[in-house]
């Protein structure tokens, strides 16, 4: 695979958790390349390093060894501030749990993501307009002023997706985004994820859903801290 087309690349990525006696070797050398725009699924048993890999790719944590490239740029040695700027402008996260700020409305959650992006300063009005557009995209414009506890799990994840899109990032990292949902809600959320992917974003999803994994353009299997299957 040509480097030009790899929006994400890792080299010998290792992660060792813990200091002192109890250490966990969560990643033991992972080399992957993800082409721009690929719909990527990461599967594998629990506790084998999927989330760790996703967090390292997203610059939310730093590797013990190895490198991460985003759009050809090595982010491994960057300062915390620069990493934060990359998270803000280039990457959208969706997690399994506790995605939304509980004391803010759906609209304000999305606005907060815009506020935290140092690259673009929007007026409050522009923030609101854009956030409303994104809520409309996930079919929740009528819930703009709802607090997270007033939303179902599926609706909360759709707001999370809208918020991940707030700064128009190239990459969406989703860690079991439907892991906590019933099949009905899962279907709905996945539809929105597919729709987002169609707009040209690179989507990486950690999932245990086999039928979703089958639809992946790139499927990675993480087992015991290594990337086993690597099927483009």
């Amino acid at each position, binding site marked *: 695979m040509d480097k030009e087309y790899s929006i994400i690349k890792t080299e010998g990525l290792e992660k060792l958790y813990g200091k002192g006696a109890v250490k966990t070797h969560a990643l033991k050398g992972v080399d992957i390349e993800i082409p721009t725009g690929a719909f990527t699924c990461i599967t594998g048993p629990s506790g084998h390093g999927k989330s760790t890999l996703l967090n390292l790719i997203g610059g*939310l944590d730093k590797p013990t060894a190895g490198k991460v490239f985003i759009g050809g740029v090595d982010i491994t040695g960057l300062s915390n501030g620069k990493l934060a700027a990359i998270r803000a402008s280039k990457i959208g996260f969706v997690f399994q749990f506790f995605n939304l700020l509980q004391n803010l409305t759906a609209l304000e959650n999305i606005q907060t993501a815009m506020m935290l992006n140092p690259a673009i300063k929007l007026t*409050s009005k522009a923030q609101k307009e854009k956030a409303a557009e994104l809520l409309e995209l996930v079919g929740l414009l009528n819930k703009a002023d709802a607090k997270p506890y007033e939303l179902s799990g599926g609706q909360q994840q759709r707001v999370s997706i809208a918020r991940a899109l707030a700064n128009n990032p190239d990459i969406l990292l989703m860690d079991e985004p439907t892991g906590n949902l019933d099949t009905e809600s899962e279907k709905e959320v996945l539809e929105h994820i597919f729709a987002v992917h169609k707009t040209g974003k690179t989507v990486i999803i950690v999932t245990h859903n086999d039928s979703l994994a089958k639809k992946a353009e790139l499927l990675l299997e993480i087992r015991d801290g290594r990337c086993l299957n690597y099927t483009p």
Partner: protein
Amino acid sequence: MNILKLVARNLFRKKGRFVFTLLGISIGMASFVALLSMGENMQSVVKAQAESLGASFMIMPENICIYNQMAIVTGETISESMEYKVFEDLTAVNDVTIIPHLTQKTSIKDKPSVVAGILPRETYAFKVWEMNEGVFFESDDQNAVVVGIDFAETRNLRVGETVTVKGEQLPVIGILAKTQGNDDMTMFAPLTVVQRLFNKDGYISYMSARVKDMSKIEAYEDAILKIANVQVATNDKLLESVLSIIGSVNSTLRLIAGVALIAAAFGIINTMMTAVYERRREIGILCALGGRAGTIFKVFLIESGVYGLLGGCVGVVAGYVVSVFAAPIINREGLDMLKGVSAEASIDIKLVLTAVIVSFVISILSGLYPALKASKLTPVEAVSYG
């Protein structure tokens, strides 16, 4: 959405905790303001009273202690006495006008009162008094009283009424015009009358003296000391020693206020630490969304700073209310030194600003550690697990 709005939402999410933390800092600041402003007022009241004594110096019993000196300045009775004969001896000193006082405690209309025995004619001239109502004494042994204007007002006394002193009925024949000093809160009777009523025949409490030429005051003092075994103190010296007592009272008050503030500071630290712990997941989300450590630090620091600003403002208002209403209560409990404080409690802009700034600084300092803790949280753990 901006950081201030985010802070506002965070502040009000737990309304009970917000209110109680705010109460903590407000009460701390209120005691700070109340104690400081009462202390300041005490000083200014004493200064005003000392000025209104209208004498160049005081002649007191030889072994008088500082508390009794203070009593003279504040218009209280003193326990020491000296002989009237000393006064007669001292009239021999030229160019010095001296008047004697015999102050005694009594109760008029159920209120503790000071009755001062004076030489009517001499004192009237010495003090440059004027009458508000009624007349002054006509003779040196007239069985009657003349009262200060505040004395009359607080006891609802009218000219023509009678008061009972030591079982004897005395008519109120006059009310003095305002003097701005202790005399306003005193009841006067001829010296001989007070001596008789209180069994103090031949005794006085202290004397006031005025000289024509202040520059020669030391010479007069020497002349007096040659004649009699007394203690002489200029008003300035008296004031100085009284103020030094108030000063030490003031530093005690400041200490108490300081302790209240420290307690309030720990209240803020406690609230903010709890908030950091409770919101560690949200801090993780903010990080994932691109929030920098500095931004998260700011969010928490501003939050605790708001406690300081609001608490400072509420505290200043509460403190002044307390100092205005508490002073009379303290008065009633017998601390007559604070007499007049309530009337003079004025809003001191410098104290207000100091209080608000102190409150803000304390809350910022209290917020530093929790904010630092928040900004150092690793986001990964927070967002990954249910």
